[in-house]
């Protein structure tokens, strides 16, 4: 087997393995989604979802994360064309947008907690913080992963192994954007008004 064929096979095997992990993560998120859906009205006399959620903030987060996912896609294109400069700028932009998203989310959490609406107030808020917090934690892991990619890129350059890593990161990041669509819809759009 030639070197190129071996590399291609390794690439497709790694991708499938990571994809299977993403699918199990989907099931994790599904269980958190349905927990939220079941407990949304269990406010224990505290604040309801209609009183707490700000839709404009949620839309801003949605647009930031979507743009981040798009820019990350452009960075992935740069890998295939081996344009390192475009790749680096794409990943830097992805990181900045991801960090902005996380900052807005943490600000929202802090605001809720400072008004006394923390996760101990009701089953509804427990499920809200668990669902949205788990997504935020994934974003944080993605940002740390990006930092590692930057570090390796600086010290060793764009090796085959790193190219695989960046492609997997791209899958992860697109996947997180996909999960956010459903958080935006069920938690904010439906929970915020109905």
């Amino acid at each position, binding site marked *: 087997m030639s070197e190129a064929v071996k590399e291609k096979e390794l690439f497709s095997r790694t991708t499938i393995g990571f994809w299977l992990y993403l699918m199990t993560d989907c099931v994790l998120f599904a269980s958190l989604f349905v927990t939220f859906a079941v407990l949304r009205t269990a406010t224990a006399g505290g604040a309801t979802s209609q009183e707490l959620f700000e*839709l404009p903030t949620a839309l801003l987060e949605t647009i930031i994360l979507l743009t981040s*996912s798009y820019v990350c896609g452009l960075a992935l294109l740069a890998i295939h064309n081996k344009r390192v400069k475009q790749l680096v700028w794409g990943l830097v932009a992805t990181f900045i947008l991801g960090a902005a998203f996380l900052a807005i989310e943490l600000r929202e959490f802090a605001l809720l907690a400072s008004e006394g609406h923390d996760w101990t107030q009701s089953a509804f808020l427990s499920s809200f913080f668990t669902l949205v917090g788990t997504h935020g934690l994934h974003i944080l892991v993605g940002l740390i992963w990006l930092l590692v990619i930057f570090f390796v890129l600086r010290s060793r350059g764009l090796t085959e192994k790193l190219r695989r890593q960046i492609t997997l990161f791209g899958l992860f990041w697109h996947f997180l954007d996909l999960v956010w669509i459903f958080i935006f*819809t069920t938690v904010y759009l439906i929970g915020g008004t109905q």
Partner: protein
Amino acid sequence: MTAARYAIGFVLSLILSLAAYYYVVLGGSGTWFLVILGVLAVTQMIVQLIFFLHLGDEVGPRYRLMSFAFMLIILLVVVVGSLWVMVNMNYHMMDMTPTEKTDYMLIQYDKGF
């Protein structure tokens, strides 16, 4: 995988997100509310699966598509099953006081499986 495909996916996703947002903000409600939001979200999911995650581009045995389909089955069982059971239980217990609820649960427990 081209830049044009990513751009199409990005614009379509943006339009679908904004459509859902303005439908809700401009006072959408009623029986079709959940259906319309559900359709918009699922459409955006399909758009992103095709244009961002390239699920349609696989060649040979389509392992990614198959595992995705299997995941959807598990997801539906978890989501629909939980909602069904919990809504049903709430419906049957909604007029009870906390004490009555406890007694009812104990009676159900004594019945066994």
